[in-house]
Structures are given as structure tokens and as C-alpha cells.
């Protein structure tokens, strides 16, 4: 790329620049196409199902025979909330604690470095493997339950929460920690009352994204939750169900229009849930950033 070449064919260089810029823009469009296609398919086919006799679809039981027409995903919605909520209650506190250890105590020690490395590797373990693991450890002994599904999802969420939380702890300025020590606070007190509150919005946002991913998982629930069609509010006792499981089941009954309609309705419900969680995650961060920057400038 010497000066002679720069002067030689300006038009050709500009042309290749333009072509590559267009190619990059095209890539963005190519990514957007399937997203819009899937959203429009889910909304156009699912909305009428969910809205027909609202809120029947969200609260009624699932018809026991899948070719029978009529609403109902109530038990699956309850199951999804129960399984995902329990998984969150297990994985988020443990993940935050683990990240606190890695950043505030472990630092560059061997143990912390190994854990940090393997946590990244663990985020890549396929979700079906975690489901199988929970089957071997839990379901074989205690049978199907919502709790088994929650354990599988918690295993998937744990390394994600550890990673996102540690990143947020890194952003907390050391001056805050030193100020707390100077006031005589112990290390644990500093972490609990100064560092974690300062990092809270980022931690919440990371956790919400992890929950959104987990709520849509099917494979880890296959071996742990079972597939009932009636309400089951008992966390530990008996088979339960979830929205992704119902969609997966319905996919083998697509010959029946009623089953296909319920599948699209369930898909719309599930996509809405995951999108709301994702948008909430963004809003938490955006609002805090705005408040912080306002506070700084005043």
C-alpha cells in the first residue's frame, strides 16, 4: 500500500471500499430477515390463538387429546414460571457469590484462574448434556418434577451469571472499596454494602439475560420435568410441564390443526416472555446509566 498505488487507481480503490461497505450492510439485512420472518410467523399465526376468547388460552388446561380443538396452555405457563423462577433463585445467588470470590478474593490466584477459565468452558456445554446429567443425578432417584428441570436450568445459568457479574464487579472503582476500608469496614461488609450495590444494575441485567435464555430451553427439561397436561403447583412432587416442552410435543402432532394452532400460541407466549425479559435487562442498564451521568454532571 505505497503512495504510488494510492494515486494510481483512486476510482478502483473507492469502488472496492464501496463494495465492501455494501457487503457489510447487506450482512446486517441478512441477519434481520430470519428474525423478522420468525417474529411475523409467530405473531400472525399465534395472535389469533392467544386472543381468541382471551384469556382462555393463558389459563385453561391443555386438552388431554392433542387433536381436540380448543384453548389451553395454562399448566405450561405455570410450569415455565415455576421451573425458571426456581432456577433463578438457585443460580443467581450462587453465581453472584462465585463472582465475588473470583474478583474480590481469588484475583490472580491459581484456583480463581482455573475456575474463571472453566466457567467460560462450562457456558459452552450443550444444554442437552446438562439435562442428561440432572437425569442421572436427580430424576433417577426422585422421579419427574419441576425441581429437576430447575436444577438443569440452574447448571446452565450458573457460569453465565458468574461471567456477567465478574465483569460488572471489575467496573466498580477501587476508590469506593478503599473509602469503605478507611471507614473501618471489613472486607465482607465492604462487598455486601458497597461493591454489590454499586454493581447491582449490571448484575440484574446480566441475570435477566441469563433467565431469558433459560426460559426458552427445551432439551434440559426433556429428561427431568415430564409432560403433564394438568396444573401442578407442587415444586418437588410429580411430573410438570413447560411451554417449550409443549411446543416440542405438538411438533409431532402437526397433522392436527388444533395441535398446530396451540403450538403457535405457545410459541407466541414464550417469545413474548423472553423478549420482555431481554428488553427489561436493557432498560435496567440504560436507566441507571442516565441517572449516573446526570448525577456526575450536576
Amino acid at each position: 500500500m505505497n503512495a504510488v498505488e494510492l494515486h494510481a487507481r483512486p476510482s478502483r480503490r473507492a469502488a472496492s471500499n464501496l463494495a465492501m461497505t455494501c457487503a457489510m450492510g447487506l450482512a446486517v439485512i441478512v441477519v434481520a430477515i430470519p428474525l423478522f420472518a420468525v417474529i411475523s410467523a409467530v405473531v400472525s399465526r399465534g395472535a389469533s390463538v392467544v386472543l381468541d376468547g382471551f384469556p382462555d388460552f393463558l389459563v385453561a388446561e391443555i386438552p388431554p387429546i392433542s387433536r381436540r380443538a380448543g384453548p389451553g396452555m395454562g399448566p405450561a405457563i405455570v410450569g415455565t414460571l415455576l421451573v425458571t423462577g426456581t432456577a433463578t433463585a438457585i443460580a443467581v445467588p450462587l453465581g453472584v457469590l462465585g463472582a465475588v470470590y473470583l474478583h474480590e478474593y481469588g484475583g490472580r490466584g491459581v484456583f480463581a484462574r482455573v475456575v474463571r477459565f472453566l466457567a467460560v468452558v462450562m457456558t459452552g456445554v450443550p444444554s442437552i448434556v446438562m439435562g442428561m446429567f440432572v437425569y442421572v443425578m436427580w430424576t433417577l432417584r426422585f422421579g419427574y418434577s419441576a425441581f429437576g428441570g430447575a436444577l438443569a436450568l440452574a447448571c446452565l445459568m450458573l457460569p453465565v451469571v458468574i461471567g456477567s457479574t465478574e465483569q460488572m464487579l471489575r467496573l466498580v472503582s477501587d476508590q469506593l472499596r478503599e473509602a469503605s476500608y478507611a471507614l473501618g469496614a471489613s472486607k465482607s461488609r465492604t462487598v455486601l454494602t458497597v461493591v454489590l450495590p454499586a454493581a447491582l444494575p449490571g448484575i440484574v441485567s446480566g441475570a435477566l439475560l441469563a433467565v431469558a435464555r433459560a426460559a426458552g430451553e427445551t432439551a434440559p427439561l426433556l429428561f427431568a420435568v415430564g409432560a403433564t397436561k394438568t396444573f401442578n403447583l407442587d415444586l418437588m412432587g410429580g411430573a410438570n410441564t413447560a411451554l417449550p416442552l409443549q411446543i416440542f410435543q405438538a411438533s409431532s402432532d402437526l397433522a392436527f390443526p388444533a395441535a398446530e394452532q396451540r403450538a403457535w400460541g405457545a410459541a407466541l407466549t414464550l417469545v413474548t416472555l423472553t423478549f420482555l425479559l431481554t428488553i427489561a435487562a436493557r432498560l435496567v442498564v440504560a436507566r441507571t446509566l442516565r441517572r449516573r451521568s446526570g448525577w456526575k454532571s450536576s
Partner: protein
Amino acid sequence: MHASGLSPRSHHADNAFRWTAALAAGLVLVILGLVAATMTARAWPAFSHMGVSFLTSRDWSPADDQYGALAFGFGTLYTSALALALAVPISLGVALFVTQVAPGWAKRPLIYLLDLCAVVPSVVWGLWGMLVLSERFGLGLSFLTAGLILAVMITPIITSLSREVIDTTPSADKEAALALGATRWEMIRATVLPHSRGGLVGAVMLGLGRAMGETIAVALVIGSTHGQITANPFASGNSMPAVIANEWGEADELHRSALIALAVALFALTIVVNLIATWIVRRRSPG
């Protein structure tokens, strides 16, 4: 160093907190270790029944107690390769567009868009692939349909990792190239790409790991044909995770053990890919 030395009670509390946190961090090691140990134990009957032919035979017929996983391994690698071939150029293009081309106001919405792509549930992509890609567009239940769906699913992760890597290019390098009269594309080729090469390889490998482990979407669109090893993308086949999801319900003792053996093989495969990828990404960033 701080007040803990002054009051013994707070010292104990401090230590207790430290150890609780260490235990939580150690859970990562415990879980990974247990996954490897307990699942290998459960898979042992199938491994010892089949011996090496578990890996070298393509004959998978539960009725005759034959469990050769070769064709499923092929399906996993073939669909993942198709997915990478489609997803890598597109992800790189999007990452470059977001970091180098897009005006400031457009960056955030583009990143949100990718976030949303990443949270569309696997089973919903699968349903869409079945009813729209395969039926409406006539791609059928095939390796190609599975590869397309996988490409859509791994693009957000490859893009976001690439974006992080590309963002670390020193702006002094980029400005130097521009000051010499380089066009934007020449600047990217001369500074951004050489700087990011290692990290981009790592990002692609993490995407590969995701593609190999993706279950439900593939299970719905790959066609579930046993023993299929062919380069024809329109043929239907099967992949390791898809077999597990599709056959688990009606499997008996040894069959289940064989499916767990598939999961162990998948675990080993993805762990190796992810170890290498993480190592590559880590090597180039200090800490």
C-alpha cells in the same frame, strides 16, 4: 489492613463469607467433574457392549442392540460446518458494520436486534424451520435446513464476540492508516483484521461448539434418518443431540445407556472445542 483485626467476631464473619464465596465458585469444578464421572458410569454398559464400533459403525438399530454412532457424529459435524460456512462471513460483516461503519446512534439498536435473535427459543426456530423453511420453501427435512437454522442461531454469539475483539483495535493504528489516505476498507484490512485474527478464530470456535450442541431445533428439521453419511445437503440425516432428544422417550435400559454414551461423546467434543477456543481468546487478552 482493616478493622477485622480489631474485633474477632467480624473476623470470623469475614472468613465465613470468604469460604462461602469460594464454595460457590468451586461449584463450577464440582459440576463439570460430576457431569464427566456420573454420565460415563451410566454410559459404561453401552460402551462395553459396543467397544470401538460405537465410534466406527454406522449401524444404529436398538431392536438388535446395535449402537454405532458414526453417522450421527457425521451429521453433527456436517450441519455445524454448513452453519459456520454461512454464519462466519455474515457475523464478521455485521461485527465490522456495527463497529466501523454504523453511525453512533445506530449501534445500540443493532446490538438490541442481535440480542433478540439470541433469545428466540430453539424450539421456536425449529417450529419455524419445519413449517416455513422446510414446507413452504421446499428445503425438506435435511442437513441443509438444519445448517441454515444453526447458522441463524450461532450468528448472534459469533457477532458479539467478534465485536468485542474488534473493539480492542487501538484507534491510533486505525487513525494512522486513515491519515495515510487509506479508504475505510483498506484501513480495516491493514489494522483491524490483523489485530483481531486470533480472537476471531476463538469466536468462530465458540460458535462451532454451540452449533454442535444445539438439540431441539436440529431434531425438528434434520429428518431423523439413521445411518446416513452423504455430502448431499438435501438428504435427511441425524445428529448426536437430535437422536438423544428424539429417542429418549421410547428407549429401554441398554438403549438409554447408549443415548447417555452419545451425550458423553458430545460433552467431550464440545469441551475440547471450547477449551481450545477459550484458550485462544484468553491468550491475546491479558488477565
